[in-house]
C-alpha cells in the first residue's frame, strides 16, 4: 500500500514509524523522500489496525493512504500531550485500518453522525 504525506511549514521530522518500527526495519521502503513530503510503499496485514507515527516536531498537512486522501482526518492524530490534532512537539500518531476505503468511509460516517455533531456543536464534547 502506498502512503503519501506532507509536512507543514516549520516541521523538523526525525523519522517515520510504521506499527512502531522504523521504515527501514518494517516491510516498507521509501519511494521518495524530500524535506516536506514523502512516499512510502508498505505492507500491512489485511483487515487489521495499524499506526503511522511521524516523530519530531511536526505538523501534518496531508496523508494519502492507498491513493485515498484522508482529508481532515489529519487533524485527528494523537500527540505526546494526549491531545488530538495534526501537530506535536515530539510526535503525531495516526491509527487506521485496512482496507483503507472501508475504514475511511466508516470513520467519516461516525465523525459526521448526528450524535457527534450535537456533541461538537452544543456540548464541546468530542467522543472518540
Amino acid at each position, binding site marked *: 500500500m502506498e502512503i503519501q504525506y506532507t509536512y507543514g511549514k516549520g516541521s523538523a521530522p526525525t523519522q517515520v514509524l510504521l506499527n512502531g518500527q522504523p521504515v527501514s526495519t518494517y516491510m516498507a521502503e521509501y519511494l521518495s523522500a524530500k524535506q516536506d513530503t514523502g512516499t512510502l510503499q508498505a505492507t500491512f496485514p489485511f483487515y487489521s489496525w495499524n499506526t503511522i507515527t511521524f516523530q519530531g516536531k511536526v505538523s501534518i498537512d496531508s496523508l494519502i493512504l492507498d491513493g485515498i486522501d484522508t482529508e481532515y482526518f489529519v487533524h485527528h492524530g494523537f500527540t505526546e500531550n494526549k491531545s488530538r490534532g495534526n501537530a506535536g512537539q515530539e510526535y503525531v500518531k495516526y491509527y487506521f485500518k485496512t482496507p483503507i476505503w472501508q475504514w475511511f*468511509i*466508516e470513520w*467519516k460516517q461516525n465523525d459526521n453522525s448526528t450524535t457527534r455533531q450535537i456533541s461538537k456543536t452544543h456540548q464541546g464534547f468530542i467522543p472518540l
Partner: protein
Amino acid sequence: MTIQLPDKYPKLIRDLFLYDTVDNSTPDNCSNYESLVCSNFGFLQLRLPFEIQTEQLLKEAQSLTWKDKSGNYVWLYGQNKPLEEKLADGMGFDLDTQYTSSFKLDLKSIPAFHKFYQDINKLCSITDITLKKVEPGGYFAPHIDSFGNPIKMYVALSWPKGNYFKMYNKGFIPLDPGKAFWVNVGTHSHCVVNDSKEERIVISLYADWDTPTWRKIVELSYLQRACK
C-alpha cells in the same frame, strides 16, 4: 453487485463500488413500521397511492433557472430562511424551534410540482423539497446527511444509464424515473456518480413521516418490496 468505474473518479469511490459487495437494503424480519425504522435499514422502494407524473415534472424542472450550487440545485419548498442559512446550518436542527415552510417559487410556474406536493402532503407533512442535478462525470463522495430528518425520499426524474446511487453496506438503489425511494441517508454513507453523457435530476424530499397514513404506506411497501 459491484461496478468497475473509470480511473477519473476518486479511488475511495472506485473502491466502494468495486469491493463493497453487500446488497442488503432492508432486513427480512421486520414486523411493522417501528421495527423497520429501528432496523437501520438502507432504502425501500415506496408504493405510493398516486402516479408520479415524471414527464411533466422533468419538463418543469428543466424549465427552471438552476443557479445555486454551481447550477445543480433548486430549492422548491422549505423553511422560511435564506438558502445560505440552510446550507450552512442544516435543516433546522434546533429541536426547540417551530419551523414553517413555504414554496420558494411562484406556484404558477410549477403546477406539476405543486400537484406532486399536494399528493404527498396528504400522506404526511412535507418540510423540504429540492431538485438536484449531477452533470455527466459528476459525483458526490461518500457522506452522510447528518442534520435534520435522517430519512429522505428520492424520486428520479431523469436517470440515464451510467448513473449510480450507492449506499455503503446496503447496495445500489435501483432509481429510475417515476420510482420513489425512502432512503436512510442520515445513518449510512452514500455516494452518487453520473458516469453517463447526460445530466440527471432527482427530487429530494423531507417530511414529518410519523403519520398513520405514512406508516401504512411504508408497511405495505415493505411487504411488497422488490429490492430485497
